């Protein structure tokens, strides 16, 4: 019997591990996002973070509900497929795959930027080839680590996440106590308020600081008792990240630098002015801020670049983990070829997926680094993309992928509330309107509508303001759809419609595998009651 059973992902992630997994991904985002948002949104950076943060809270609530109800490795892709069918499930999954592979490259890139604060030879603008080579080595190393297994990296993430929460809190404490000036905040917001176009750019980049909740859903399949654990870890994660993002952006706009800053002509500068038109600084915003915090900055200037680099490396690792797991889930759902669900017999990890998407991350790295490595490429990028390159190239695509997949997730949440009221929901988004649909009592999630409007507007901002996001993002989706059509035709599966799914058995199996036996009983009881009343056939 045991020889016939396919190897599956093991459940090795504890509650703290689940939080740490999400935190190491989302928590690291502020390390990348702060500099980028300050560069574009300038005096309105805190407003950009607040807008993106509100949307993020709504996304977080949606993911919490869905991941606790359907604790499977597919995350957003599974929810969309369950709610809207195979085709839209594929598009959402394909967009998430783009995000995770960008995640690998972007965070490895930023990791080296943080290290460059201590090791000048890593500065991208001056030693482009060294920077490129180090990022490449990091991606290859993470690939190997992930092929080896899950538990090892989870333990590592947990300890670094704990140190980072403490460190970020200390930086904020010292910054607000000794360097923050409310009058300077007001002055900066009035004098450096950006144009509407730049503000839209800033908001679309600010969403980068909040991407990563997908990781918790991804880890749901490997979390013990996910329906109970996921709501707790997600709520803590949402609040922690939002507080840090708002804290850092307000501090950056309203702080007096501990050491006076001067531009090339010797004129005094405000802290936020370090970032516009400076790609090197944009990649290490938190390290620069920490060094300018009075007293604690003496220590922070040395350890924050290292801590940031480690956290970013872990986040990059989350990208490798996420992309491989989502490809695994998509393959099991017959949205991608079966080779992606091959689990390594010894390590029980999806080795083929890991290798494939790390290779894709390397291709993205080449595209991002090319203008810095070759003057001819710089000229081409200047003509086609208004000179966007490096970290902004990656940031554009990251924002596009996140906004696309999150938009679908909100629609899927609404659809699932209407189509599947039988699944027990241990956590529900607040503000629901009870109603009857085809004889069934359902609850319409009002907040999900607001969330969809918010994330759709961020997607629109990305398409309007980012030259690369506008071209490469839709091109990625078009390429994916082409591959999907070819694969489904070859396998004689419906292309635009969904294949037959027995969602009832699937859901019962998901809950049983998750160890949520009480929820499974409740689900089966709901189904029996509905059948006795002659409702809900075929859902």
């Amino acid at each position, binding site marked *: 019997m045991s020889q016939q059973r396919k190897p599956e992902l093991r459940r090795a992630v504890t509650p703290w591990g689940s939080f740490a997994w999400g935190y190491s991904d989302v928590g690291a985002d502020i390390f990348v996002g702060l500099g980028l948002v300050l560069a574009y949104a300038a005096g309105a950076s805190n407003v950009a973070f*607040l807008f993106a943060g509100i949307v993020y809270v709504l996304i977080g609530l949606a993911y919490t509900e869905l991941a606790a109800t359907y604790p499977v490795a597919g995350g957003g892709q599974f929810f969309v497929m369950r709610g809207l069918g195979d085709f839209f499930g594929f598009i959402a999954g394909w967009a998430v795959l783009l995000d995770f592979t960008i995640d690998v490259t972007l965070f490895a890139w930023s990791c080296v930027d943080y290290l460059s604060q201590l090791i000048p030879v890593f500065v991208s603008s001056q030693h482009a080839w060294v920077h490129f080579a180090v990022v490449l080595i990091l991606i290859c190393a993470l690939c190997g680590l992930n092929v080896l297994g899950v538990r090892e990296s989870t333990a590592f993430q947990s300890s670094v996440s704990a140190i980072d929460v403490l460190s970020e809190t200390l930086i904020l404490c010292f910054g*607000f106590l000794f360097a923050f000036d*409310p009058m300077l905040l007001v002055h900066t917001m*009035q004098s450096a308020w950006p144009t509407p176009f730049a503000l839209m750019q800033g908001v679309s980049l600010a969403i980068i600081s909040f991407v990563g909740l997908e990781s918790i859903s991804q880890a749901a399949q490997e979390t013990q008792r996910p329906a109970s654990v996921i709501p707790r870890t997600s709520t803590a994660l949402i609040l*922690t990240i939002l507080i840090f993002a*708002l804290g850092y952006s307000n501090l950056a706009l309203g702080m007096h630098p501990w050491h006076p800053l001067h531009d090339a002509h010797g004129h005094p500068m405000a802290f936020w002015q370090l970032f516009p038109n400076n790609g090197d600084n944009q990649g290490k915003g938190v390290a620069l801020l920490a060094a300018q915090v009075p007293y604690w900055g003496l220590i922070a200037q040395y350890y924050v670049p290292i801590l940031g680099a480690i956290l970013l490396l872990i986040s990059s690792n989350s990208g490798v983990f996420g992309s491989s797991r989502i490809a695994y889930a998509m393959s099991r759902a017959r949205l991608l070829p079966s080779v992606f669900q091959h689990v390594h017999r010894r390590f029980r990890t999806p080795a083929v997926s890991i290798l494939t998407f790390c290779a894709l991350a390397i291709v993205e790295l080449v595209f991002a680094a090319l203008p810095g490595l070759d003057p001819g490429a710089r000229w081409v990028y200047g003509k086609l993309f208004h000179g966007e390159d490096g970290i902004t190239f990656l940031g554009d695509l990251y924002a596009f992928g996140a906004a696309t997949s999150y938009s679908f997730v909100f629609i899927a949440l609404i659809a699932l509330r209407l189509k599947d009221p039988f699944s027990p929901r241990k956590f529900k988004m607040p503000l629901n309107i009870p109603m009857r649909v085809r004889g069934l009592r359902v609850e319409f999630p009002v907040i999900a509508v607001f969330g969809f409007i918010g994330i759709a507007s961020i997607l629109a901002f990305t398409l309007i303001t980012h030259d690369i996001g506008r071209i490469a993002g839709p091109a990625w989706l078009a390429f994916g759809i082409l591959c999907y059509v070819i694969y489904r035709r070859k396998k004689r599966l419906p292309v635009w419609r969904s294949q037959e799914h027995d969602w009832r058995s699937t859901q019962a199996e998901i809950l049983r595998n998750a160890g949520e036996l009480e929820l499974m009983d409740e689900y089966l009881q709901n189904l029996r009651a509905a059948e006795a009343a002659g409702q809900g056939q075929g859902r």
Partner: protein
Amino acid sequence: MIPLRLAFYALYVVLGAAIVVRVLAAGLRWEAFTGVVFGVLLAALGVYRMLQFVRRPERLQ
């Protein structure tokens, strides 16, 4: 360990309240809005965790 945790949450409340006061020192202006939200959130997180701890200490294990 228990009093240390409570002290940590109390620190959140104090810090959040201090930030609200500090940001509003520039007067009641719309520019202070995000700072006030930040401070209130921080204090609310501290209160939430303290209440959670007092009511059901096992949830924090």
